[in-house]
């Protein structure tokens, strides 16, 4: 990773990596501003002209949306605010590579949406790659440029959301009604199928719907394929790279 083995890498290497921990209750008495100032200080020695480190605290607080809560005790922050602080700690050293481990686990839909916006803002950071693990495939589809699917400890798929969906045959589903009767047909290539449908029945075709397989369908298909191949029972995990 970044040209070194994490187990033996030195401190200069460490300065280039950001990790967002699913932390829990550390630094309860500190405030976000105080903690970020203190932890950011460790990166000052690794500052370079094109990569000034650490990120100024006010800028950091604004990025993660904690400006209003910067001087509250950390113990009083809600789960969502707490996670934002964790992200701020992860990026305070302006890392080349940032790890987010299931950042939205346990979030309500609003908090999840806010967090996705935050990740989009982070991806605008100059030259920072983000590696995010998640079990939420809609999340991976929304955020990631490149997706890796892990099953039984192995990478079973690697590509963009589009590429992955295309890789599974019969990946589109066409639904329609004809004379009051419902029909469903699975096809890898819906356009010619729909054209033929119209040629045959004309305007009698009603309620036409074409669904591309979602990433979730793809995922399940790929994991099923993997599990047939060898009897891996480990819980599969989707990884997403931006």
């Amino acid at each position, binding site marked *: 990773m970044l040209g070194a083995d994490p187990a033996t890498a030195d401190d*200069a290497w*460490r300065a280039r990596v950001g990790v967002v*921990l699913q*932390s*829990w*209750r*550390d630094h309860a008495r500190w405030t976000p501003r105080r903690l970020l100032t203190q932890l950011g200080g460790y990166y*000052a*020695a*690794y500052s370079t002209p094109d990569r000034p480190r650490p990120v100024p605290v006010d800028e950091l607080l604004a990025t993660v949306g904690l400006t209003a809560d910067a001087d509250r005790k950390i113990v009083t922050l809600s789960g969502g605010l707490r996670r934002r602080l964790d992200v701020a700690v992860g990026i305070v050293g302006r890392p080349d590579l940032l790890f987010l481990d299931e950042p939205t686990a346990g979030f309500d839909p609003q908090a999840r949406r806010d967090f996705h916006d935050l990740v989009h803002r982070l991806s605008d950071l100059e030259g920072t790659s983000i590696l995010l693990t998640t079990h939420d495939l809609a999340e991976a589809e929304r955020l990631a440029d490149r997706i890796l699917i892990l099953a039984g400890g192995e990478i079973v798929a690697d590509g963009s959301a589009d590429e992955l969906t295309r890789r599974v045959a019969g990946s589109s589903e066409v639904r329609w009604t004809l004379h009051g009767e419902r029909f469903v047909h699975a096809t890898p290539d819906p356009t010619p199928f729909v054209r033929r449908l119209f040629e045959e029945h004309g305007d009698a075709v009603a309620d036409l719907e074409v669904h591309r397989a979602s990433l979730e369908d793809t995922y399940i298909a790929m994991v099923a394929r993997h599990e047939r191949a060898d009897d891996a029972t480990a819980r599969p995990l989707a990884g997403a790279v931006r």
Partner: protein
Amino acid sequence: MSAATTGRPPAGRAAVRLGLQRGWTEFVLSLRSPQDQAFYLVSALGTLVFLWINRDDAVEGTDLLYPSVALPSILGALLAFGVVIGPAYALAMEREDGTLLRHKALPHGMQGYVTGQLVYHSLGLVPSLLTILVPGFLLFDGLMSGGAVGWLTLAWVVVLGLLATLPWGMVLGAVVPSTQKVGTWGMLPVLVITGISGIFAPIQALWGWLQVVAQVFPTYWIGLGMRSAFLPDSAAAAELGGSWRPGATVAVLVAWAVAGLLVAPRVLRRMARRQSGSQVQAAREAALQWVR
């Protein structure tokens, strides 16, 4: 370390400076915390009430009153106990709550963290000693008979005592399997050592072999050094060998300090190496499940 360019302090030294800041911040936050204020107050009140109840008892073989002899001993015990158990709990807890993991992810983070711990727990002694000393001087007469020399003795005993015990508190915190086990692994042995160290009862009241055991540990010597600082020279007659044995005190405390400073970095490095996210996760689950 090619990324560290010239013109700035080296990263390691910067980390130590950040650690000093960290220790100071933790100390200030602790002083402001009602939880810690209550701890300081309760331990001081308990000690003072205990001394006040026994204020008119004469100490056998001397013309001194009980508080004059007991207060220095208790200060010694508080030092030895607090500086071992405090860091042990802090380290065990911060291993589980993610504080340590955060520092592991930082460049030179562990150096900063350990410096912060040393500063924080050393500073923490100040309020716990002052809350007893200041009211003690108001309540009881004849506490400090040594004058300036006595205060000087107090200073070196405190510093040497710190050096002899604080590293072992860190070692303890690094090796206990979990916070819930600090009681069994740390508290119990330290309480036993404190109990046999002549703090509450003269060491001569113990069996001979137990006196030898007590003199292996630093607690006895810190208590002895404290008494030598506060009490008149004539009181030395009540000690083992009828002397304050300052030479032996320095020798024993320095030996513990050297051993501690040799062992602690190794144990801490091993602890840092083994610290991982899944360990923090496991601790979190363990804390939610007390009964198993």
